[in-house]
């Protein structure tokens, strides 16, 4: 009976998925899972770069993808297509505090557990023959000298392999990755190292003026670009020669409309482009239209993938979006839901990662605080509320009688 029920449920689910077009989802190539670690490493350090723009404050990020159907992210192995679930759970935190005048010490932790498994889970995967479950932890300490607008940060990156199925190349834990980040004003230099080898170096120039970091709210300075240039050392894994990537983020209109371009040198050329609209400069909400060149080594084609995404404070919906393609194992052809939330706090401003102004939520808060202030009075805490009305009209009298009142109340309540 239970069997039959399961079958019926299964069939109903298949029909549902067909009906919604989700069954047309493209499979995730096994190669995207086995090369996912290097992408995560890069992405986490990019996020750290963004959060460290101010060098102090706090940051919190939490998110996980939610896919209801096993046909949404099937795995493409040499044997065919496996039904199952790609997953990505991540959280990140950063906090700092003053240790001396003009000196801030902080700590940060970025964590991501991701891969593919035969079952939908939150903590305990099925670990079947084709699972790929691994996690990446980046941690570090930060030190900022506010007077010179200088930040130094550094730490380690640990890659922990929980399960690598039979269709992937062998992988091991690697604990010897380290990173360093040096920021001065709008410029930062970031390095990722494996033992004594440099894996990549990134020079970022976040020239755009941001109110939250003491810049301007409008004007020509807000139209300066954010450019970063990364040199990847591919010779270490004998994969290919060095290559370079340039990212260009450009404010197009009032820090709410941005264009992004990513370009690979010397061979690959165009990598991705995006047009992003943030209705509010705090970037709590985003509408994205993206285009990315697919990876020929893994997908077998270098077609352009067009897609888009909508992001709200707690949830993100994406279809063929470049962020999901890059960070969610080349998933495409299906709607991907991510429950996520991230918030940066800096000098009392609250905004999402990369934001330029404080979230509107907080302005409401401030106004509310003012409105909720108790009505103007004599600033005394009245023991008896009924006296409030009389105290204002007969002020001198009340003052004269203070001693008596205190005596009385003290006698009755036994407090004084």
């Amino acid at each position: 009976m239970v069997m039959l029920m399961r079958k019926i449920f299964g069939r109903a689910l298949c029909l549902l998925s067909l009906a919604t077009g989700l069954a047309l989802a493209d499979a995730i190539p096994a190669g995207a899972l086995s090369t996912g670690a290097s992408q995560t490493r890069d992405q986490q350090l990019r996020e750290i770069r963004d959060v460290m723009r101010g060098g102090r404050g706090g940051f919190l990020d939490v998110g996980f993808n939610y896919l209801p159907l096993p046909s949404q992210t099937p795995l493409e192995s040499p044997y065919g297509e496996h039904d199952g679930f790609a997953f990505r759970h991540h959280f990140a935190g950063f906090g700092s505090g003053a240790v001396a005048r003009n000196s801030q010490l902080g700590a940060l932790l970025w964590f991501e557990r991701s891969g593919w498994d035969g079952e939908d889970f939150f903590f305990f995967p099925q670990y079947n023959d084709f699972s790929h479950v691994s996690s990446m932890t980046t941690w570090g300490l930060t030190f900022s000298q506010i007077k010179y607008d200088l930040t130094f940060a550094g730490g380690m990156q640990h890659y922990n392999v929980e399960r690598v199925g039979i269709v992937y190349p062998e992988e091991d834990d690697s604990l010897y990755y380290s990173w360093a980040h040096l920021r001065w004003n709008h410029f930062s230099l970031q390095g990722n190292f494996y033992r004594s080898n440099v894996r990549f170096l990134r020079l970022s120039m976040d020239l755009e003026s941001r109110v939250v970091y003491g810049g301007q709210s409008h004007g020509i300075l807000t139209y300066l670009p954010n450019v970063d240039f990364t040199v990847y050392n591919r010779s270490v894994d004998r994969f290919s020669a060095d290559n370079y990537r340039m990212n260009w983020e450009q404010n197009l209109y009032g820090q709410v409309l941005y264009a992004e371009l990513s370009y690979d040198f010397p061979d690959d050329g165009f990598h991705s482009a995006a047009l992003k609209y943030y209705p509010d400069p705090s970037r709590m909400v985003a509408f994205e239209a993206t285009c990315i060149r697919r990876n020929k080594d893994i997908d077998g084609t270098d077609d352009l993938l067009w897609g888009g995404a909508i992001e709200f404070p707690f949830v993100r919906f994406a279809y063929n979006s470049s962020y999901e393609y890059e960070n969610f194992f080349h998933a495409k052809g299906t709607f991907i839901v991510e429950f996520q939330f991230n918030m940066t706090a800096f000098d009392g401003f609250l905004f999402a990662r990369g934001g330029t102004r404080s979230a509107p939520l907080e302005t409401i808060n401030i106004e509310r605080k003012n409105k909720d202030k108790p009505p103007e009075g004599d600033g005394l805490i009245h023991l008896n509320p009924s006296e409030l009305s009389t105290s204002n009209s007969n002020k001198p009298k009340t003052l004269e009688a203070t001693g008596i009142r205190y005596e009385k109340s003290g006698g009755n309540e036994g407090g004084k």
Partner: protein
Amino acid sequence: MIRSILMRRMRTMAFLLGLFAIPLMLTGCLSHWFIESETRLQVENATAKYSILSLDVVSLDGSIYSSWIDETILPGERSRVVSADWVGEFKIRLKYTKSADASGDTLVDYRMLDFDGGSMFLKISAEKGSLKYKFR
């Protein structure tokens, strides 16, 4: 005033979303009620004169294989039930002989089959010299 009401509404919304997130985290556990993540396969040889030697999953290019039912099934017999992690669409290689006692030349038949997961019963019959696969 309106803003403070809005604020309160947003707080309620956030609370409801938080509440909604709790059962959502259990979806993994819930989906296991109707989504099978392994296939328990039994093969029946419904032919009159062929013997089945084995059933394997092979890679699409034929270079690697993984054996699944490794057992000789004579006409009219059923194999043991073997559970494996194959859920999805795979290329199957069936080794068989055109004899009732598993003697003679080994022949090979390739098929793309869809495995939904759960208990599956595969009936292999022969019609006019070609093999027919049917799940029951």
